[in-house]
């Protein structure tokens, strides 16, 4: 049976916590383990309490876990806040001076000052922890060299010495904790988080233009694009505000560039008018909304699934859209690609709805077959357009041939006002009706291209767990925990939440004795949407809105509570 460990690294911002966590996670991935990372941080650059949590296993894992097996405490506060979460065999790794803070838990008192200077304390902690879980020195050393060699070659020697001393020190300690079993021939895997995968998915789809205004937790998508922009020939511009960001992207898209904007709730609120503009001018655009708890500024660095209804309805007037909601890092990549394909095919705004948990959650990911994935082809060929050219020609499926201005001698005219087939403002009310109908006909195409929800588990289940977006892994693991207890359990996970196609899923609801929705908001927004679209009311709901990700333990506890 696979062994799991949950490692929590805690400390102040500015102590090198993320570097330590990322290096440990990368060492684990390179050694063949599967990981799920949760990053929890406060909205500040120095101080505050922050954690980098790595759940690791020699088997496949897809969800975080709450009980802590190894608590790496870079300060006393970490011990105070997390000691109670330690599992029965849990170990605290901390400076010897902090031993007094710890109660009964096994304490690994690390003589930090003997193993390296204060500057490399995080590397000492890396060495001790890596060695504790059973990683080989050489692999961690290589990971460290890859990381610092590029950025700070001058620091390499001191870091390597500290790492070596930390490994040597641990080998002399007697530790009761069992190491992870070694993985023979580790598979070639990447360490990647959700936002990096969205950036790469966009690049793979042929992204040419990206404009943004910084906002947590979406900023790292834009930074991910920027890190490859030269190589991929992408124009990235930080705009004066989110309104400018999306309008610039629409201008670029109109001129033939596959375009994307990525933001979070408050920034998206500023973009809403331009979403409607994209709908009216039938300009393709991919909008990524990385959710965090609102209203207003809310909890800027925490997670929530509270913007589903907002994204579904944002923008005045009636026009078609699609909303994809990835549940894994792989889906972040592939569904972002799909978002570009749909945006181009249906000349509409298409959304990728993610959240802080998935944005920052590193996983071990098998490399995508990127060499065989085609980018989108923006605009139509002249041969597809009937002449005289009319940008908004009425067609059976509602999609009119989109020529790129300047690419041919034909004029491309788009108007935010209601317009005629040739794109010019009109107040002819018969034309108005035709244009509304034309635009809405694209909904049928989008519906036909909807990703069906992912069903797994027992037929005719006692419990059917229904979820969407980033909760996928936790729901799946909760179901795996319930089954050995003798319950028939199934899961139904939606990675596209609009359009909804009842034929895809209604029968599963009807077959289940009890349907339970699991989502990260207070109102049960997805359950409400299901009811609106199908009439089916999901009465049992597991909801979380304290800013933390939904874990398998959280689901199981909530279900126990509902049964009592």
């Amino acid at each position: 049976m696979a062994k799991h460990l949950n490692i929590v690294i805690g400390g102040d911002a500015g102590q090198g916590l993320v570097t330590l966590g990322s290096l440990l996670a990368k060492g684990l991935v390179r050694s063949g383990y599967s990981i799920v990372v949760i990053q929890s941080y406060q909205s500040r650059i120095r101080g505050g309490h922050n954690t980098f949590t790595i759940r690791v296993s020699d088997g496949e894992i897809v969800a975080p876990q709450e009980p802590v097996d190894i608590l790496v405490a870079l300060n006393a506060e970490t011990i105070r806040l997390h000691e109670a979460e330690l599992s029965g065999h849990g170990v605290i790794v901390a400076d010897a001076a902090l031993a007094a803070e710890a109660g009964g838990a096994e304490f690994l008192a690390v003589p930090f000052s003997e193993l390296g200077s204060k500057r490399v304390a995080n590397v000492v902690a890396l060495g001790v922890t890596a060695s504790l879980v059973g990683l080989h020195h050489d692999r961690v050393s290589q990971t460290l060299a890859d990381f610092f060699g590029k950025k700070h070659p001058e620091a390499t020697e001191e870091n390597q010495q500290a790492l070596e001393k930390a490994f040597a020190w641990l080998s002399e300690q007697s530790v009761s904790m069992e190491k992870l079993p070694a993985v023979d021939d580790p598979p070639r895997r990447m360490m990647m988080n959700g936002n990096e995968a969205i950036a790469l998915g966009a690049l793979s789809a042929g992204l040419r233009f990206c404009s943004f205004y910084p906002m947590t937790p979406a900023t790292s998508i834009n930074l991910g694009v920027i890190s490859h922009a030269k190589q991929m020939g992408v124009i990235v511009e930080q705009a004066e505000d989110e309104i400018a960001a999306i309008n610039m992207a629409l201008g670029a898209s109109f001129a033939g560039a596959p375009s994307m904007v990525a933001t979070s709730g408050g920034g998206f609120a500023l973009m809403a008018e331009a979403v409607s503009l994209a709908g009216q001018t039938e300009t393709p655009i991919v909008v990524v909304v990385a959710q965090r708890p609102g209203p207003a500024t809310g909890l800027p660095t925490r997670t929530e699934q509270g913007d589903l209804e907002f994204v579904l309805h944002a923008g005045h007037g009636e026009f078609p859209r699609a909303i994809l909601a990835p549940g894994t890092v792989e889906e972040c990549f592939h569904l972002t690609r799909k978002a570009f394909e749909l945006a181009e095919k249906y000349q509409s705004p298409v959304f990728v709805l993610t959240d802080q948990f998935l944005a920052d959650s590193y996983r071990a990911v098998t490399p995508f077959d990127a060499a065989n994935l085609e980018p989108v082809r923006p605009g139509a060929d002249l041969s597809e357009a009937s002449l005289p050219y009319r940008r908004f020609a009425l067609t059976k499926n509602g999609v009119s041939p989109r020529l790129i201005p300047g690419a041919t001698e034909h004029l491309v005219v788009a108007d935010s006002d209601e317009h005629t087939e040739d794109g010019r403002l009109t107040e002819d009310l018969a034309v108005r009706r035709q244009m509304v109908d034309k635009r809405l006909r694209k909904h049928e195409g989008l519906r036909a291209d909807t990703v069906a929800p992912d069903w797994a588990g027992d037929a005719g289940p006692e419990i059917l767990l229904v979820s969407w977006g980033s909760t996928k892994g936790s729901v799946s693991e909760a179901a795996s925990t319930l089954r050995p207890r003798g319950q028939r359990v199934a899961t139904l996970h939606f990675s596209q939440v609009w359009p909804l196609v009842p034929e895809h899923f209604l029968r599963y609801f009807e077959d289940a004795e009890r349907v339970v929705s699991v989502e990260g908001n207070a109102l049960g927004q997805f359950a409400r949407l299901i009811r609106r679209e199908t009439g089916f009311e999901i009465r049992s709901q597991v909801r979380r809105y304290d800013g933390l990700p939904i874990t398998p333990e959280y689901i199981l506890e909530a279900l126990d509570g509902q049964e009592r």
Partner: protein
Amino acid sequence: MVSAADFGDYETAWCPGCGNFAILDAVKAALVKKQLQPHEVLFVSGIGQAAKAPLYLNANVFDGLHGRSLPVATGAKLVKPGLTVIVESGDGCNYGEGGNHFLAAIRRNPDITVLVHDNQVYGLTKGQASPTSQEGFVTKAQPDGVQAEPFNPIAVAVAMRAGFVARGFSGMADHLADLIVQAMDHEGFSLVDILHPCVSFNRVNTFAWYKKRCYALGDDHDPTDWSAAVTRAQEWGDRIPLGVIYRNDRPAFGKRFPPAVERSEIPKRVEACLTAYL
């Protein structure tokens, strides 16, 4: 040979006597002077009576949201540098709703020409004050008179060292057409603030009011002299100077962005990017 007829002749929604007609003719004259084919030009506009102007022309047009023409034009120009991109909209659109974009566009200096129909009043919404309305200007919405100083687009643009700053008047059509040609020739952000009367809603700044005050700057004004331009930009009231107030040769925006990658090249380049995550 391109002629004015190539740019079409459309029925408009403007009031008889509106200054917009003369501006439309001046724009056509400038396009003819530049010998640009309609498909080589992209007009981006917002919302307002002025913003309708591009729809009365044969050209590529993106008529977007109120106030948002500048970012749309900037995005389009970056990905299609071969297009001649012209923003055409009113004072409310560019200086009110789009004020932040106006400042940002001056800072970036994209190679676009910005024609602002400036009649100091809102026409489409029937006569409210605009950002350039004079203090004390009485409207139905400001019955006690406007209680704010007018926005001075020329002074702001000069202060920020915009690439090309000019003022024209619909009542001096040839002079205006020449300014638009110069603005299009300029590589970078070029502003032409165009004074014109609103016959329906502005009874103060009438055709006669402008006619009496507007004068063309002579050779004695050196538009490359920033200090002289700062002084000239403050001149308003009995005398209103027209012409190129200020110009410089700041490099146009976008030179540091990478060129597009051939579509067929993209898959293997993405594959190369992935190695950074191993």
